[in-house]
């Protein structure tokens, strides 16, 4: 997803890219697609941030971390939460999906495939440990609202799957 940028220097983007998702620390807020707009007016920076899930407790922490990172460059930063248009897993960058998988969370499938996995119990999600698709959903809700819990029938290890949200 493309972030709308107005009058932004590279140092501000670098600072944003240094802020991790507290729940999935290998992914930064740009990769996650939650930063929607960044605007610089003189020494003030205005950022629109969108929540992944409405109740996600990580959002408040992300706002604070973003403000801290950009304030450190000598700006005054204002972070605003916006909910429209609603966040979609399509906004996670390719880089973000790759890092997520390396970290042990299977990235979201396309919507139709996601339904076949979660509703009909089909084996389509690749195990993050051994890449086998001989996998089964254990619970629609995992360690956080955005993930489901899976297990692999080949290597017998459990892993998380990031659910498709559109």
């Amino acid at each position: 997803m493309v972030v709308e940028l107005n009058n932004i220097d590279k140092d501000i983007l670098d600072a944003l890219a240094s802020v991790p998702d507290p729940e999935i620390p290998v992914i930064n807020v740009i990769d996650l697609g939650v930063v929607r707009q960044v605007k610089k007016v003189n020494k003030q920076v205005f950022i629109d941030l969108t929540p992944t899930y409405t109740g996600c407790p990580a959002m408040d922490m992300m706002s604070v971390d973003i403000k801290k990172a950009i304030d450190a460059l000598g700006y005054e930063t204002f972070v605003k939460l916006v909910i429209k248009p609603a966040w979609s897993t399509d906004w996670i960058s390719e880089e973000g999906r790759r890092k997520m998988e390396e970290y042990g969370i299977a990235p979201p499938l396309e919507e139709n495939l996601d339904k076949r996995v979660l509703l009909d119990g089909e084996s389509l999600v690749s195990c993050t440990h051994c890449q086998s698709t001989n996998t089964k959903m254990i619970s629609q809700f995992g360690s956080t609202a955005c993930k489901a819990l899976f297990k692999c029938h080949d290597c017998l290890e459990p892993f998380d799957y990031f659910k498709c949200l559109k």
Partner: protein
Amino acid sequence: MNDKLYKYLLMLGDNSMILGHRLSELCGHGPSLETDIALTNISLDLFGQVRNIFQYAAKLKGANTTEDSIAFLRTARQHHNCILLEQPNTDFAHVIIRQYLFDAFQKLQLENLCESADDQIAAIAAKSLKETNYHVRFSAEWCKRLGAGTSESNQKMQEALNHLYPFSFEFFEQNEIESEMYSKGIGPDLNRLKDIYFSQVKTLLSTAELNIPDSPARHTKGKSGIHSEYLGYILSDFQYMQRVYPNMQW
């Protein structure tokens, strides 16, 4: 107008808040680790949705109103949730039936609210609907699994349904404020949703091998602030910190 819209927002929000609290009571007490985590995740989503609604309501009300003052400082009579949502977590069957009866309604309501003439309500609904789609999948799946499970699980589900189903009619008892919201294009026509709802519920319950109880609708007035005794106990727990330490913050 703002007063009525404010009250309408409380009606929308209180359902999610009271059910969210009921589900939070199950944290660490679910029948298995996976269902425990699922139910508390659903609780978290409901609280996220209600925060959006109450933040908007607080803005309309102005003065010193905040999302927290709306959530924590109202008396029982000032709550507008349907009585179904305050029913206790008697057993897992009751938890699942209550959840399904609500999720099926909430999904229909949110789909309609996405088209609301009020932009903020439409935005909140669009965001919330994505989550509610997952909730209804979860509760409908469990209805089928337990209803069409063993004779014991079927019996427990049927008992829970017999008890809770009559409360579901309250969703559609369109009051004055809801009628006005409908006429202004802000809220849905509940009379129209009623037929769709009960036809969907009947289909699911028949797949789940459960019988629709023939007990009549319970005439309840939760939406206008008259509640069962359960709500007082819920609020004494839910509001405890704000009442004992006024204005405390995390």
